[in-house]
Every structure is written in structure tokens, then in C-alpha cells.
């Protein structure tokens, strides 16, 4: 770490917001992205504001009527261990389980994963299809943004200096089948070459699929909801959705794999996803 920083652990939200006002201040939750960036010289914050003193942020609530809320301090393993999330929002548990390693998941948080805003963030596609909303605190009070407005670019979010994400809310429990798929290079811990989450509900004909790692921000496939309702054959539906996904994404070549492989894997995995969530009753 070339540039030493200050460390603060506020006891109240007001203290935290106040500390985050200064230019070089950054919030510290799990630290599994931020401390790596500091070590590599990618970020040089003046002050790290440890939000783990704010106990409210550890709340993980679940209500069949009202939906779920996941606080900024909730670690991925805590999320995975939560039986209700596993039962009703398995796409979140699956996405979380695919991230990093067991010991990193004891520290890394769901909110931290999407605040880091890597195009390949594994939590993001699930949050998109669940219609998640990000609740932000600032000196004026609170504001909320849908997840797709929160993520704005590569490592960029709509969060302003002096703001803090409090939690993410899933406003209502979705009906239907959901799943998360991720293509990696090895079975062990790896970043996604492509990832995606899908939700399908036969009665309403809702079909939502969001693809990550293939554009600067996750890509939510639009206009596919009606396809499911009219679909007579899952295989044909899968093929059609895969076709549409091809035009929606804009992947790149990078050190992990080629653009062409990403494109082709999106086709393969979108089909697998559709088969998985659109089959059966």
C-alpha cells in the first residue's frame, strides 16, 4: 500500500455520512475489492470509513408480502445461510455462492459486490431480474434508485460523494422459477466470463433475463416477456431468446477470453437458463 490512509469507524449514520463528505473518503465494508484496489495502486483514498459499526446495516429481513431487504453490511455467507432467501430468492443465494472463496464470502457483502460495479459483478444480474432498488442515505435524507439506474458504467455508480448505500430492497417476492448461471475458466474461484440470471413465471408469462460481463453494465433483455406466454416449445423459446440476447450484448476480447467465446457462451447459457426456468409446471 503506497499511500497510507486514515481509518474511521463511525458509530452513527450521521457520523458516517459526515466522514464520507471529504473528497478522498470511501466506505469500507468487506474490503475484498477495496483493499485489493488500494494495494494495486488503482485507488488511493485518504480515509476509509468502516461502516461495520452501523449495526442496522447488518439487517436481512424477509417478508412474504413485503419482499426482502439486505443491508450493506450483510456478508455473502450470511446471505447464503439464510434459509428463506434460499427458498424464495434462490437466484441470490446461487449468485452469492459462485463468488470468490468461502473465506472471502465471510467478509464480502452483496452491496459491496455491486457497488464495486465490475461489469462482471455476479450479484448484479440477479438484482436486475428481481427489480431491486438501492436505498441511499445522504445528508438530506434518503433516496432510492432502481438497480439499473444505480450502475452507470465500468466501476461507476450513481453514488455521489457523501452518500452511503444502506441496503438493497426486493420490493415484492417474485413468482416463478429463477436461476443463476455463470461460465468460468475453472471450477475453482474465478471471475465470470459470462453470467446471467433469469426469472420465469408461466401464469403471467413473465420472463426476465439479465446478462453480465458482456457490456459495461448488465444487460436486461427487454421484450421477451411476451415470448414465454405464446411459446409452445421450450426449445424454440430458448433458441429465440438466445438469438435476441446476441443482439443485445456487446462483449469484448480481454485477457480472460475472446469476444467470440463470450458471444457463443451467452447463446449456450441463455438456452440452458431458459430450459431450466421455463420447463415444468
Amino acid at each position, binding site marked *: *500500500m503506497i499511500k*497510507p*490512509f*486514515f*481509518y*474511521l*469507524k*463511525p458509530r452513527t449514520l450521521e*457520523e458516517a455520512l459526515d*466522514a464520507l463528505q471529504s473528497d478522498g473518503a470511501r466506505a*469500507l465494508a468487506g*474490503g*475484498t475489492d477495496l*483493499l*485489493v484496489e*488500494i*494495494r*494495486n495502486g488503482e485507488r488511493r483514498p485518504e*480515509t*476509509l470509513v*468502516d461502516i*461495520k459499526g452501523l449495526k442496522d446495516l447488518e439487517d436481512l429481513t424477509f417478508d412474504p408480502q413485503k419482499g426482502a431487504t439486505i443491508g450493506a453490511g450483510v456478508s455473502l*455467507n450470511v446471505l447464503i445461510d439464510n434459509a428463506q432467501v434460499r427458498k424464495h430468492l434462490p437466484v441470490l443465494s446461487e449468485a452469492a455462492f459462485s463468488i*470468490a*472463496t*468461502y*473465506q*472471502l464470502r*465471510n*467478509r464480502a457483502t452483496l452491496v459491496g459486490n455491486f457497488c464495486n460495479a465490475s461489469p462482471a459483478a455476479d450479484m448484479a444480474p440477479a438484482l436486475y431480474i428481481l427489480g431491486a432498488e438501492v436505498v441511499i442515505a445522504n445528508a438530506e435524507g434518503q433516496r432510492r434508485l432502481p438497480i439499473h439506474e444505480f450502475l452507470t458504467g465500468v466501476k461507476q455508480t450513481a453514488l455521489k460523494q457523501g452518500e452511503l448505500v444502506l441496503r438493497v430492497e426486493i420490493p415484492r417476492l417474485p413468482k416463478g422459477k429463477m436461476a443463476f448461471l455463470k461460465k468460468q475458466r475453472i471450477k*475453482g*474461484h474465478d471471475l465470470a466470463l459470462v453470467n446471467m440470471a433469469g426469472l420465469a413465471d408461466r401464469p403471467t408469462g413473465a420472463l426476465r433475463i439479465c446478462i453480465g460481463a458482456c457490456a459495461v453494465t448488465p444487460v436486461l433483455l427487454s421484450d421477451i416477456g411476451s415470448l414465454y406466454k405464446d411459446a409452445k416449445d421450450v426449445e424454440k423459446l430458448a433458441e429465440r431468446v438466445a438469438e435476441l440476447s446476441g443482439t443485445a450484448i456487446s462483449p469484448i476480447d480481454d485477457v480472460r477470453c475472446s469476444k467470440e467465446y463470450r458471444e457463443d457462451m451467452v447463446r449456450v447459457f441463455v438456452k440452458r437458463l431458459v430450459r431450466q426456468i421455463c420447463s415444468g409446471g
Partner: protein
Amino acid sequence: MKRENNSVKITVTVNGIEYRETVPAHTTLLQFLREKLLLTGTKEGCGIGECGACTVIMNGKSVASCLVLAAEVDGAQVRTVEGEMRDGELSALQKAFIEHGATQCGFCTPGMIMSAQELLERNSNPSREEIVEAIAGNLCRCTGYEPIVEAIEAVITSKDSPRRST
């Protein structure tokens, strides 16, 4: 909040002993353990949480100590490999590692043991898949992992208790 220098005061219990220290804010838990407390059992293999050589148990959970700040362990209970032997007795896991050839060069071993020990303390009968998941974040270049999995399985099937944390 007034900030004069970037030191932080911490009180932390490591392997049952309480320490009160003042450290620069940017000190990682790994550096604190190795350089301040001279507990060099825990190793640095990559500094970015990818290899697991720095794994310790913090408040009952295994963590990569290279990505935890010393400042963040104020008030915490930390366990390192040095605390696994008690009263001159190796733990069941340590004995199994020796018996099953689960250690070759030994550099990944401390982190591997802490990951495995934490598993055994939260799950008394893990499947092979669960064992592999618990240690997948610990890279080993020497053993090919199979003997490590065998050592952990041996502890599970033996009558020795893996020893609960105190």
C-alpha cells in the same frame, strides 16, 4: 472527528491472549500478526485474497487476513495456526495432516488447517463436496489436494472430536 496521525488503537484477543496495540491504519491483520505479534505461521502468498495462505479464524469465521485491516479486529477474537496445539497436544486435524501426507512444503498448511478447522467446527459431518468447498480457497502447488481431503475425512470418521473453539 479529529485526525492527527493515521494510527489506530486496537484491543484484540489472539489465540486466547489479549493484546493492546497501536498500529498505522493501513496495517493489515496479516502484517499485524506476523510483524507485530511475531506469529509468522500465517503466510502471505498473494496479498489479494486469492491463495488462502493467510487464512485465520476471526470471531469463529475463516477470513483472508491480507484483506482485513488490523483496525477492523478491534474487539475481536482471532485464532491462528499457532493456537491449534493445546498443552503440547496436536489437534486431531494436525495429526491427520501429518499421517495422511497432507503437507509437503508446508507453506499453504497453516491457512489450510484454519480453513479445515473452521469447517469442522461448524459442520461435524461434511460431505466431500463441502470439504472441497471449504478448502477451495486455499491453493496448494505440492500435494494435489487429494491427501488433504483424505486427512480431513479421516478426522470426521475418527472418534476424536475436532475440538470446539473456546
